[in-house]
């Protein structure tokens, strides 16, 4: 997907306008935007969003690829820029550069079983995959979503998860790290549900997004079950600043996460994850 032409200089943002804001959790909002020249994105890509006078950060796109009329981002309020973004209201304007980065190889998963594993806010970057899988359900084999959250109150997109769980053509398991007895779902780590999931390891493509430790354990768990490392894809997070592989802040071994990633396959990224200094 080609980035918006922002006056030919890739470092100059275009103006985007917030058209809708939804509060998902106490510290998480999803907002829809529109921007002149937006030509859509591929699942897994991100935009550089800026609040003027505050700063710029990379945020994954969390909406459906099939609707290019709006740009959807889900943001957790954790730092100065994300706080400013999470505080924006309908009608506000912000800067946008993108979309950037390599997408999830969803096309390559056609005809195969698909396992999507997400943790915490990591459900947002994989949501475009889930939309694609459901819009073209017949193109894929068995589909499984495993999602882990901190507590029942921290479950992202809870209403959509309920809808997905009610589908007969998709397995969805949600687990939390802790809960009181009023929670009727699973308690425990998300990786524990890999063993009970229904997929053919030899014909499975896996997409993982969440905290790096969780992704590591999930990828190793999938390999233990027989999934090929090259069929396991992760979305990496590093200090992305330029978004176009110029500044070097997000360098991970020989790769720039913003340009060569953020999506990498496990065969490529596993050796780098073992280097603590990276």
């Amino acid at each position, binding site marked *: 997907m080609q980035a918006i032409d922002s006056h030919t200089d890739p470092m100059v943002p275009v103006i985007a306008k917030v058209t809708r804001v939804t509060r998902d959790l106490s510290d998480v909002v999803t907002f829809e935007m529109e921007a002149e020249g937006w030509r859509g994105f591929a699942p897994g890509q991100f935009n550089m969003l800026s609040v003027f006078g505050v700063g710029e950060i990379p945020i994954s796109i969390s909406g459906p690829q099939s609707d290019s009329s709006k740009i959807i981002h889900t943001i957790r309020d954790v730092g100065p820029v994300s706080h400013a973004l999470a505080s924006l209201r309908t009608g506000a304007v912000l800067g946008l550069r993108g979309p950037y980065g390599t997408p999830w190889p969803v096309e390559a998963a056609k005809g195969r079983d698909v396992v999507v594993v997400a943790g915490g806010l990591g459900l947002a970057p994989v949501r475009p995959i889930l939309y694609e899988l459901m819009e073209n359900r017949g193109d894929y084999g068995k589909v499984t979503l495993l999602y882990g959250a901190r507590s029942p109150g921290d479950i992202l997109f809870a209403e959509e998860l309920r809808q997905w769980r009610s589908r007969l053509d998709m397995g969805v398991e949600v687990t939390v790290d*802790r809960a*009181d*007895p009023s929670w009727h*779902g699973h*308690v425990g780590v998300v990786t524990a549900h890999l063993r009970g999931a229904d997929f053919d390891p030899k014909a499975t493509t896996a997409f993982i997004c969440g*905290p790096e430790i969780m992704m590591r354990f999930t990828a190793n768990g999938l390999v233990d079950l027989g999934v090929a490392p090259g069929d396991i894809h992760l979305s990496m997070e590093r200090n992305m600043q330029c978004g176009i592989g110029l500044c070097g802040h997000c360098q991970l071994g020989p790769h720039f996460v913003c340009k060569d990633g953020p999506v990498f396959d496990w065969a490529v990224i596993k050796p780098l994850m073992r280097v603590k200094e990276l």
Partner: protein
Amino acid sequence: MAIEGLERILAGHPLFANMAPEFLDTLAGCAKNVRFAAGDYLFHEGDDADHIYLIREGQVSLEISAPGRGSMVFQTVASGSVIGLSWIVPPYRWRFDAHARSDLRVIEFDARCVRGKCDADPVLGYAVLKQIMPVLVERLHDTRVQMLDLYSAGN
């Protein structure tokens, strides 16, 4: 006939996958089928750990109570799992409550019977431990991951 049935059930349970038939035969003598209704407690913290439960169907929450906080669920286990490992290690006492979240079908072992057979036949004892250790290691690992609080805002 009932014992033969249990052998087949045991052989099909993930915990006893690949275990030698003669061992299953021996262990089946300590086992019986039991049902619990949703809401029942299988045991409470402090009780003697004199049973081993293999879940055939249903879900159980493992809970610890704290003053002013009520019960806190730290893990749920479902079909194919074993509940509790305190029956292996003295003083054989449960460290938490086990609460049936749904109607439950389990295979209940008399832990004293299993321990006695394992003590009498160390080869059987080693085979049982080899089946149990992966569960123990996996739960220790999972607990460590939960303790890391990976999904907190700082992560």
